[in-house]
């Protein structure tokens, strides 16, 4: 279980060159897409489709990294690699945790 997500807006803004406008757009898009990402991840796992699960986990890894959530991105990376290796058995908990992480980050961003 990864440590709780702590929003480090300063580090994110630093990467975005201090552009609050871009930051706001990205947060808004993240919040708009979050349930779609969770659903796509769950569907790929349920379908036992390693390739799609790998890609969805990869996308989520990028999203979490964008908001400087390194522990969350690391979790997504583990799911991505396991899916790539075809080791889907036992990934159920990890997929659920990843969905929780996405929602946790969303809640923090929303509170923002």
């Amino acid at each position, binding site marked *: 279980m990864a440590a709780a997500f702590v929003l480090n807006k300063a580090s994110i803004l630093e*990467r*975005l*060159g201090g*552009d609050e*406008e*871009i930051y706001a*757009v*990205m947060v808004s*898009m*993240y919040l708009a*897409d979050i349930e779609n990402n969770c659903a796509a991840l769950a569907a790929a796992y349920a379908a036992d489709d390693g390739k*799609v699960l790998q*890609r969805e986990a*990869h*996308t989520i*890894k*990028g*999203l979490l*990294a*964008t908001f*400087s959530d390194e522990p969350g991105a690391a979790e997504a*990376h583990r799911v991505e690699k396991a899916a790539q290796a075809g080791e889907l058995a036992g990934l159920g908990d990890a997929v659920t945790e990843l969905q929780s992480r996405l929602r946790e980050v969303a809640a923090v961003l929303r509170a923002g």
Partner: protein
Amino acid sequence: MHTVLIIDDSDINLTLIKALVLKLGECNPVLFDKPLAALEWCRSNEPDLVIVDYMMPDMDGLKFIAAFRALHGRNEIPVLMITANDQRDVRYEALLGGANDYLTKPIDRVEFGARVRNMLSLRIGQKFLADRAAHLAELVDARTSEIREREKELIFRMSRAAEFRDPETGAHIQRMAHYSQVIAHGLDLGPAMEKLVLEAAPMHDVGKIGIPDYILLKPGKLTPEEFEVMKGHARLGHELLKDSGSEILRAGAEVALSHHEKYDGSGYPKGLKGTQIPQLGRIVAVADVFDALTSERPYKRAWTLDDACRFLEDGRGKHFDPLCVEAFLAGWEDVLEIRQRFRDEEIPQI
């Protein structure tokens, strides 16, 4: 304005990259979330920079780059690949597979700006060199064309210099050269050869420049000895023009040497027969004789067109190459037009 093509299946990444590109200024981002649609767009559009994500459905970034590079004219356009920072092997593969550089996620604005600017500078340099090469090619073409025109003018003037010492006129040179072209066309020799025939034919009598006036301008019939001297103009013309670096002058040398050969071997200077006679000589022989017959001269009246045609027909296989006579008569409408276009300005009195 630089056209920056951005391909990423994630909307949030597309939005972020588009915003960063717009911040750079003078950039027009074009977005695609499907690589195949982007590839289709690239068939008819030329971006200045491509930014492509690695992991996408349908076609990953590596396959996209390979397909993009395979399109005509897209080999040099800079490509930036976006990868996760743990994908070192993918980055290596991308660089070896045609990407110019890479960006890692999460995207850092400073690094992004520097790398995109570098790629756009590369593109500006490429375009500058391409424009310069095209400009230089245009200049070379223009200069070459000028030189070629000057060469043609000099040839025409040199041919006229020889004809000035003869009762024949500048119009004769033009007519016989164009008749020769009609024959070359009828023989289906192709546009390049037709042009060469047109340009080389005027030099057929340039060797007359070396014939003494008392023979060249003699009003009456030449003695056998004088005729032997006169026949020397073929070799003289060849000597004057041979071994030139110019293709036209080399063709002119061949014409000068062979235009008095006859198909049955009774001509001069070598007495060549049939296809031993260079084709240029066989062509020019028909054109030159026809124009000489149908032109008025101080010492003779012009033959009628019918009589001149009959002379050519009777001379098939004897004086003339039958195929050249056939080609000439097949272009009769053109022959008549050439006669009208190049009339003798002053008809010398008989």
